[in-house]
Every structure is written in structure tokens, then in C-alpha cells.
């Protein structure tokens, strides 16, 4: 399955991404930031709305722009681009709220077959990590790019 995605802008070091969501509430600037949590390879995926005037980035805003699938597919695409540059990275993602984590889970479930062509995914459930299964309410996720067969 190939979902529609937004065009991405990426910083020179491939850790910061931006794109514009276009939906029923207009155009909304979105930011994705990968941050090294623990050297050498554990990174956090942060994602939120950017206020075009103040420059404030927030992951608590509910923009309700009617394009969540396209947004999630774009975030997944950013992880793909990031992990091409940092192939050993373990990417940790946790929503700012349970409902946002649920949204991540839905996005991962809907695109599971496509995502697992490239990534291994684990979900956190009751403080234990499990290989990701669709439709399970995880609290957080870790993804890692599979070793490139043609590396």
C-alpha cells in the first residue's frame, strides 16, 4: 500500500523535517525532530504543529485537519529518510497523550505490511516490549531499520 504523503523539507543533518498539512482547517505547518537520547543510537521522534507566527512547536495541539492518514504516512516517510542517514538508529516514539499514541498505533497498524518491509517495530505494553501487533494499545514504540541486504 502506498499512501499519499506531503512533500518534506529536511535539514542538512537529516534530523529536522517540516511539511505543510492541507485540510479542512487550512494549511498547518508541521515539524518532526529526531533527538539523540542516548549515544550512540537511541533517538526520540518528536512531532508537532509549528505556529507560523511565534515559531512555537507543540505536540498538544489538535489541528483536526482531516488528513491524519496522510500526516502519519509523511511522519513514517521522515523516519525512512532519517534512518537511511542513521541506519543503526533505534527510534523511540511516544505520543504526548494516550489519544495521540493511539493515533500512532493506528497509523502503524494500517501501514504495517509496508513499514515492516523496512523496519522492525516493538510496542510497549504494561512496561514490557513486544514485537508490534496490530490493534494492540501500546504506550510507546521503538522502530529500527532492518539491515540492508545489499548494504
Amino acid at each position, binding site marked *: 500500500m502506498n499512501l499519499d504523503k506531503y512533500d518534506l523539507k529536511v535539514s542538512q543533518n537529516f534530523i529536522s523535517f517540516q511539511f505543510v498539512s492541507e485540510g479542512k482547517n487550512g494549511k498547518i505547518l508541521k515539524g518532526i525532530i529526531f533527538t539523540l537520547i542516548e549515544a550512540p543510537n537511541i533517538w526520540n521522534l518528536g512531532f508537532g504543529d509549528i505556529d507560523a507566527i*511565534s515559531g512555537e*512547536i507543540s505536540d498538544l495541539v489538535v489541528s483536526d485537519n482531516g488528513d491524519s492518514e496522510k500526516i502519519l504516512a509523511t511522519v513514517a516517510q521522515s523516519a525512512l529518510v532519517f534512518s537511511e542517514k542513521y541506519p543503526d538508529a533505534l527510534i*523511540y516514539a511516544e505520543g504526548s497523550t494516550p489519544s495521540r499514541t493511539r493515533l500512532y498505533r493506528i497509523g502503524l497498524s494500517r501501514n504495517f505490511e509496508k513499514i515492516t518491509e523496512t523496519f522492525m517495530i516493538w510496542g510497549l505494553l504494561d512496561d514490557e516490549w513486544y514485537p508490534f501487533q496490530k490493534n494492540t494499545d501500546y504506550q510507546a514504540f521503538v522502530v529500527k531499520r532492518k539491515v540492508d541486504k545489499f548494504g
Partner: protein
Amino acid sequence: MLKTIKITKVEFDSTINEKQKHTFIEKKVTQAKKTLKRVGLPKDLEY
């Protein structure tokens, strides 16, 4: 219908207020570190 998306490399991130970005990152990293300290990594990934 497959659509090729455009990925543009930019010189620097001028849109996000740097102070706000720092605050946002701090919050996310603190949250992630707290969880990972408690639960560790998936066993297959520990190194």
C-alpha cells in the same frame, strides 16, 4: 496511485523558534528517558 514526494534539503531550520524548539525537545527527551530508564529496550535490541 503512487506519488513521488519531494524531499528538499534546507540550509537551516529558520521557521521554528529556537528557544521553543529547545523546550519542546527537552520535554520529549525527558519523557522518553524516563520511560526507557524504567523499562529498558526490547531485549533483542539491548547492547
